[in-house]
């Protein structure tokens, strides 16, 4: 895909109209991304309270004090540990399942559009609707426990300290998988068909062809999957809030964004939440860069 390429320069006379056309979008980005980002940084270095506009409350400079609070807060530590648990479950499952499904769906198959739609439906459906069904399925008196009988975990799935976070990771993997299947399907179009034919002539079986041609062929898409998984993990809110009732027992499934909400809005410490937001953003950037490095090594 050509990113920086344009077909023919416009006339010089078009320059003002171009800026005019782009202006609403630029204003939007400034208002929704640039200004809030700057404001978060500012808030994170001050003692800050939510007040009515015009109410003269001081916001004194406090240096790194908010950051110190963030780093020493045990719930924040738990939230970041939870993202790691999420990634450890979500990333291998997502990469493995979506790549295998995409390879299967890329072939000529009966009912292919039905299968594609089936895997895609959870992705387009609202989390709130799906959380409602999962809570019903995995509740202590739910279908899964009825089917398992004596094997059902106690306490049940969503209220169990050890299972709450893995449940969220499974839920998100299930919900998002269709998106990644589509991503891999697109990437597979760029893998040369001749390679498969040559390998088949040389006697390579389908498993061998999958690992020697398909997997390396879609590596850039895998990097993208990794980065998306990390961003999803960093953004978790609705699932821990709704599926595990506000973060699970003993904060077992609390997420950084959920902590930001609880601290910043429920408990009135937006300065703490702003510092946490900055830490989270740095965390996302660092892991994304690391993921890119790892998956591009050996190319």
């Amino acid at each position: 895909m050509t990113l920086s390429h344009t077909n023919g320069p416009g006339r010089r006379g078009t320059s003002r109209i171009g800026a005019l056309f782009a202006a609403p979008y630029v204003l939007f980005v400034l208002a929704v991304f640039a200004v809030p980002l700057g404001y978060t940084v500012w808030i994170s270095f001050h003692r800050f309270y939510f007040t009515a506009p015009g109410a003269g409350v001081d916001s004194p400079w406090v240096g790194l004090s908010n950051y110190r609070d963030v780093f020493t807060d045990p719930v924040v530590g738990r939230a970041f540990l939870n993202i790691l648990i999420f990634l450890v479950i979500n990333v291998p499952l997502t990469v493995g399942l979506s790549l295998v499904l995409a390879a299967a769906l890329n072939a000529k198959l009966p009912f292919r559009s039905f299968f594609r739609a089936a895997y895609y439906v959870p992705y387009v459906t609202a989390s709130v609707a799906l959380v409602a069904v999962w809570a019903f399925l995995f509740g202590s008196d739910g279908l899964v426990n009825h089917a398992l009988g004596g094997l059902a975990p106690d306490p049940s799935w969503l209220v169990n300290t050890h299972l709450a976070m893995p449940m969220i990771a499974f839920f998100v993997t299930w919900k998002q998988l269709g998106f990644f299947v589509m991503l891999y399907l697109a990437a597979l179009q760029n893998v040369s068909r001749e390679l498969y034919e040559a390998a088949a002539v040389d006697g390579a079986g389908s498993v061998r062809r999958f690992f020697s041609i398909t997997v390396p062929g879609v590596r850039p898409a895998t990097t993208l999957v990794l980065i998306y998984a990390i961003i999803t993990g960093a953004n978790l809110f609705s699932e821990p809030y709704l599926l595990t009732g506000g973060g699970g027992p003993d904060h077992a499934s609390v997420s950084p964004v959920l902590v930001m909400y609880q601290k910043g809005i429920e408990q009135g410490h937006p300065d703490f939440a702003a510092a946490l937001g900055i830490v989270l953003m740095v965390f996302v950037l660092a892991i994304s860069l690391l993921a890119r490095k790892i998956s591009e090594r050996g190319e």
Partner: protein
Amino acid sequence: MSTPTDHTRTATAPSTAAPETSSPATRGARTGRILQLTGLSLGAVAFLFPFYYMVVGSLKKTTTGDVSGALPGGFTTANYRAINGAISLGRSLLNSGIVTGGVLLCTLVFGVLAGYALARLTFRGRGTVFATLLLVQTIPFQLLMLPLYALVVRNYGLGDSYLGMMLPFAINSTAVFLFRQFFLQLPASLFEAARIDGASELRILWTIALPMARPALLTGVLLTFIGPWNEFLWPFLVTKNTDMQPLAVSLAGFLSNLQGTVANPTGALLAGACVLALPVVALFLVFQRHFTHTNIDSGVKG
């Protein structure tokens, strides 16, 4: 960019790759194909079962978690009436519709203008705008929610307003990117000829570029629709007044603390979930052909 129906190449089906193979290999290929179809079918059941369960559960007189609760039969519409009474479904749907419609309108009008400018016009700072567009798509919105909340609700006084709910999503950056990619693919000569004839840029955009970009517009609409319709966190923060809440928020409110108010709370909740899911699922199924990997691909590149 190609149409979805082009992607019928076989990469992994051995049966079509080598028609001259000997009979044991063909048998192996057939077994592989059966395994493949079985695997895909099992997967499809795992993906669709919760939707089936949602619909069946929403129609039961008493919605229970035991095995009989998963079987069809004994249907009633009482749950739909119950959820309608508990959260005023019509009002919530109207709010969802207004917010989603407003976002769609802004994205189409301003997004098309920006996409056209980025693809077809030269202006100072175009490179910067494009770089920002790519960057913005990777910044998780949730990270900015607190300052946005402070600005929108406290400083601008837009709490409990449609404008406040729409603001962070007003112009979908992914859609802008999609429009740009599409306008780039149109032949340059078309635009030059129109310019030589003295047509204004707005006129070129309206009469030449837009009609040709109809598939991209449809994809843009589908991509944009999902976000604000399904969004929970932001409208949850911005609305305190239940009359202003979109369906995802009022349903979540019911899930968290109103369940005691109806006779069959699980059934009512699932009925609400069906109503929330239906518009997007229906839209997606109707336009499935347009909503394909090629579009997703161009939307996330960068």
